[in-house]
């Protein structure tokens, strides 16, 4: 780790010609990012980081996790997060840190051996900061991925109001436990939001269900009942009916209908409306 005297020396080294060094750094990073970021923004970002680094060293900061480096770490985290969001690669992100080493190199030819020692220490420090950047970067990426997965889940499960007091959720594709749970929570919330007392869960597009999914369906229907609403399940395929019976899951007094149309007719009947075909009359 960097000792206090080295910190002091490093701080001097960096601040002696600070303006020029920082400028060279910005330029190098800008080139490596192939001008995909505005120079003004990059300049602001890196100079802030540079100043924080010098300031931390002046206060005698040691290793990466030194309290004095907290400002530097915060700035680096922010930079890494922004890069990840803007779609830069991990390499391009880390280069921002490593480029500082290259910028300092030329100054060493005239430096004392103590300066070189200090440079080596700084180099190690910057390596660690580079790794820190990578961690922050990958963490952000993970957050982005999980947020996208969630959005996809939202998109794939619409709850629609199909009549006054009737909502429906058409389920398509394989249901896993997590997705079923999300859908069911949305369905119950939609009951409240639309003031609907009837809900139709259409599973025509669902090829198979397992015990857990069937249980979630069942629990949702009971929960809806607790809230004062009624659910109808429509479009149960023969295989699914067989599975449910084979699994010994009691569907009890839950209303099931062959098709969504039948379910709608039933639901409308429960709300007090009825569908009557009138010959020769079109609306």
């Amino acid at each position, binding site marked *: 780790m960097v000792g206090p005297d080295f910190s002091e020396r490093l701080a001097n080294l960096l601040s002696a010609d600070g303006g020029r060094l920082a400028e060279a750094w910005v330029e190098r990073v800008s080139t490596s990012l192939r001008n995909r970021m505005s120079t003004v923004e990059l300049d602001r970002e890196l100079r802030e980081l540079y100043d924080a680094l010098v300031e931390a060293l002046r206060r005698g900061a040691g290793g990466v996790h030194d309290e004095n480096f907290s400002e530097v770490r915060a700035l680096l985290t922010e930079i890494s997060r922004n890069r990840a969001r803007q779609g830069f690669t991990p390499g391009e992100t880390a280069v921002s840190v490593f480029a500082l080493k290259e910028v300092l190199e030329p100054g060493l030819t005239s430096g004392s051996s103590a300066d070189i020692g200090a440079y080596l220490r700084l180099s190690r420090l910057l390596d660690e900061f580079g790794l820190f950047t990578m961690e922050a970067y990958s963490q952000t990426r993970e957050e982005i991925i999980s947020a996208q997965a969630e959005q996809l889940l939202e998109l794939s499960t619409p709850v629609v109001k199909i009549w006054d007091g009737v909502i429906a959720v058409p389920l398509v594709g394989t249901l896993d436990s997590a997705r079923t749970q999300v859908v069911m*929570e949305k369905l*119950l919330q939609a009951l409240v939001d639309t003031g609907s007392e009837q809900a139709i869960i259409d599973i025509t597009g669902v090829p198979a269900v397992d015990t857990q999914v069937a249980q979630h369906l069942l629990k949702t229907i009971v*929960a809806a009942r607790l809230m004062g609403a009624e659910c109808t399940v429509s479009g149960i395929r023969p295989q699914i009916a067989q599975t449910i019976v084979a699994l010994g899951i009691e569907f009890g007094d839950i209303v099931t209908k062959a098709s969504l149309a039948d379910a709608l007719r039933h639901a409308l009947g429960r709300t007090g409306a009825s569908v009557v075909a009138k010959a020769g009359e079109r609306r």
Partner: protein
Amino acid sequence: MSERVPVLRIGDVLLVSIQMDLEDQTVMDLQEDLAERIVATGARGVVIDITAVEIVDSFVGRMLATTASISRMLDAETVVVGMRPAVAITLVELGLSLGGVRTALDLEKGLAILRRRSGLPDADPA
């Protein structure tokens, strides 16, 4: 001394709107108050509004079920209204299905159920 939940009377319906975090003693008091008020007022219906209630545990759940049974014995119907989705899911997971308790999405629908029960006209008399 714990707080008491107010019991309001509107016509022949008693309305209880729970707006606080329920202590067990408050729950017990409410159960007693309701039974007394049903008899005293000759109410035909009770609406318990739990729209603002963030959790219903087995203690509160039991009170709701017991109150429904007691009021039925006193010739009044109880409707629990406004249960939040998260509360309903939790109750199901907890294993409480509140059998015998009538429920409705909101106050209006709850009152409509009571009107239908007592054979009164659907609209309020002007």
